[in-house]
């Protein structure tokens, strides 16, 4: 039996490692592109900075996650492409000696911790901004009351309607409550949501930055007609808003 005089190649030169690396290089952009595109296309156009931030975050997290998913996928594919055994009897045992690899463990755990930290920090930054928006003293206050199965809005000038009108580019803080069960006030394209709870008032804030008509949907099962507890928010110019809201207030006073 002749002796093998060559040293075993370094780990990164091994065939299956090189193969995995190639797959990883292909899968990362593929997965990143496909999953971010599908998700972002599904969401539709944002109607506030907040929503634009959510879309960016989804895109960012997807691209950061892509190499991780791609690595798992690449290793799986390499493994599947190597010796596969079929039939009713087990294959002979592998020639692997690896029971553990402290270096692999350390790298894996370190990288996942770094990614976790990254996700946390990006989340905290945006969260801080959202928290400040709620205490913005220049914001307009609107009271939102949820009930089975409709939303009502109280405007600063005393008007009260089932229709939500907002002036564009002006920050607004919603004060939300419910008179019966839990509902959830979701202004879909603006990316804000806050539950309406009986016995409490909760807050959320947003600055609409696009003129148009957008969706408000109840996002917490609240009984029989939960699916229909929806209406629209109309974002208009400041002038149009002023006209509309003073008109509503006059109608209230006359009634």
């Amino acid at each position, binding site marked *: 039996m002749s002796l093998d005089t060559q040293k075993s190649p370094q780990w990164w030169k091994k065939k299956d490692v090189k193969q995995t690396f190639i797959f990883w290089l292909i899968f990362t952009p593929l997965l990143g592109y496909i999953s971010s595109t599908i998700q972002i296309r*599904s969401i*539709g156009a944002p109607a506030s900075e*907040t929503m634009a931030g*959510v879309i960016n975050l989804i895109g960012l*997290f997807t691209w950061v*996650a892509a190499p991780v*998913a791609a690595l*798992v996928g690449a*290793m*799986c594919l390499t*493994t*599947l492409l*190597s*010796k596969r*055994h*079929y039939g009713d009897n*087990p*294959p*002979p*045992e*592998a*020639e*692997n*000696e*690896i*029971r*553990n690899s402290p270096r692999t463990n350390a790298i*894996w755990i370190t990288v996942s911790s770094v*990614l*976790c930290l990254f*996700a*946390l920090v990006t*989340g905290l930054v*945006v*969260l801080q901004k959202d928290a400040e928006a709620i205490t913005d003293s220049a914001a307009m206050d609107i009271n939102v009351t949820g009930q089975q199965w409709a939303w009502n809005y109280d405007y600063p000038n005393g008007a009260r309607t089932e229709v939500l009108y907002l002036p564009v580019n002006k920050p607004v803080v919603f004060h*939300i409550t419910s008179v*019966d*069960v*839990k509902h*959830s006030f*979701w202004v*879909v394209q603006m*990316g804000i*949501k*806050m*539950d309406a*709870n*009986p*016995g*409490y008032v909760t807050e959320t804030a947003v600055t609409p930055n696009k003129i148009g008509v957008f*969706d408000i*949907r*109840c*996002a917490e*099962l609240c*009984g*029989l007609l*939960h*699916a*229909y507890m929806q209406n629209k928010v109309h974002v208009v110019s400041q002038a149009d808003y002023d006209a509309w809201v003073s008109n509503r207030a006059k109608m209230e006073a006359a009634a």
Partner: protein
Amino acid sequence: MTTLTNRPTSAHKKALIEHLNIFTALALGAISAFVVWRLALQFLPQDAETSPFFNREDKITLLSMIAWFVGFMTGIGALIAPFRWVTGKDLSHEENMFYAGKDMGVKRYFRYTTDHKVVGIQYLVMTMFIFFIGGTLAMLIRTNLGHPEGGWIHPQAYNSIVGTHGIIMIVATIIMVTGPFGNFIMPIMIGARDMAFPRLNALSFWLIVAAAVPLLWGQFLGGISTGWTAYNPLASQAPLGMDGYIMFICIFAISTMVAGANITTTVIRMRAKGMTWNRTPIFIYGTVASVGLALPAFPVFFLSQIMSGMDRALGTGFYDAAHGGSGWLYENLFWIMGHPEVYVILIPAVAALMEMAPVFSRNPLFSFNVAVLGIAGISGLSVLVWAHHMYMAGWAPLLNAPFMLTTELISIPTGMLFLVLVGTLWRGRLWITVPLASIFALLWNFMIGGITGIYLSDVPADAFLHGSMYVTAHFHYTLMGAGLTGAIASLVYWFPKMTGRMLDKKLSWISFWMVQIGFNVAFIGMFIVGLAGQPRRVEGYSAIFSRGNLITTIGAYVIMAGMLILLHAVVSSWRNGVKAPMNPWQAKTLEWSVAYPIPLENFDVLPIVSSDAYGYGKAKS
């Protein structure tokens, strides 16, 4: 061993133990429920003018259901042992053998049998039954959602079906691995003769049967009006079917607690000689972690439901704002249980696949310590994350950030489990079987489920995603794509040991592909409509969501076909499948060293263990 007769020698209770079975239990339960119902109707005072929501009817329903429960458990014989204890007439050895089902043939499956192998089979059949009902409800939901206007099912019935589907599936997924395999396989795998508390074993099973009836009965009482989370105060105004949900959970919680104490004690105290913690199979760790989490978590759910019942029947003010109650109290109690619970579901399934990975790659398990650390890390952190389900509740905005931290931290131990699985398969000799394919399916599904979980864990993103179908898709990917895949793999893997036959290969492959493909089609469609703005738990939706919903519905039908094929495979293979050899997979854990039919006490001589079960290839330990 001398042949023991199965007639107990204690003359006083001889007839009684012998006559009790599921039929006496059902009869006694039904009669008790009926009698109490009539008595309550007769004697309960009318409601005072001021009480809301018909307290008296809730009292009648709850009393009647409690009577069912007491009658059923009495009729199955659960009270015999405590009664004997108090009176000092302990069960004799012959009576205990009778209880264990010795020489009783197929009748032992219909009785309060203490043999863990019988309990394991009972759990397997019960789990399949529960999945069947939950799956049927899912098909009703998806058929209705095949058209934007719905209308195939009345809105009230639809909401009830959604909530009932949810709670049934949650319970089914909780028991799907720990029930059949934690009971049948685990004691043999650790080299024991039975569980630590065989009577509690029987109790934990029959409690589930007792629990299921009120839930099903409640469907005829108007069903429930909430989701599976049974949020109060909506639950207070729900029809009488809500009382069925409450009873279901209360009884199930007791079952979980009992099973938790039993499994944990068995593993801690009854491992074979030489089976140190280092040599204990990873499946055992997964099982113990799961029931160990459930043990302190389910009582909180139990309490939340008792309080819900009190609000409904007695007019208390736990959750009713008009009486000083708080919906946020309910949410906290519920999710303190509800989050650990998803790991109760997931961990055994992943641990089972980690047990299978060495077998089907002929490689040692990669980094046993990291596997244990991953399981421990997930379990430990899982009790600290609950309020990520409440980011949008408004209850404590300052706490959102800490909960975001703990939630995102869970990705680290979760990643460890991926490392162990991929590391085990790496450079292995892959044996292409359904269990092996299930490992790849788990990696795919859990990757999607896990990453979408990270989006949801981010508070600002959750402000958009919470309460939408995105959440529903996420948890189906983790609980079903990962969890159920692991459970089905466990069934294929351990079927030969539990039934003596191989599960039909062709049918199980067809089922595997149909379920996995149908599943991914269905739930990718669901992510899309969630992102587009469809809320969850709606029986009709805006036309813009039509295409995504149709895709999901089609995917659901494919899943259904795949699951029915699996059911057919199980039934036909059980009856006349290919007889299995003692160790068809040439695996190294102890259960594969006993031949079917497994003797009552598992081992003639208890094994002594000198290594772990992962000595494949050159890396013998």
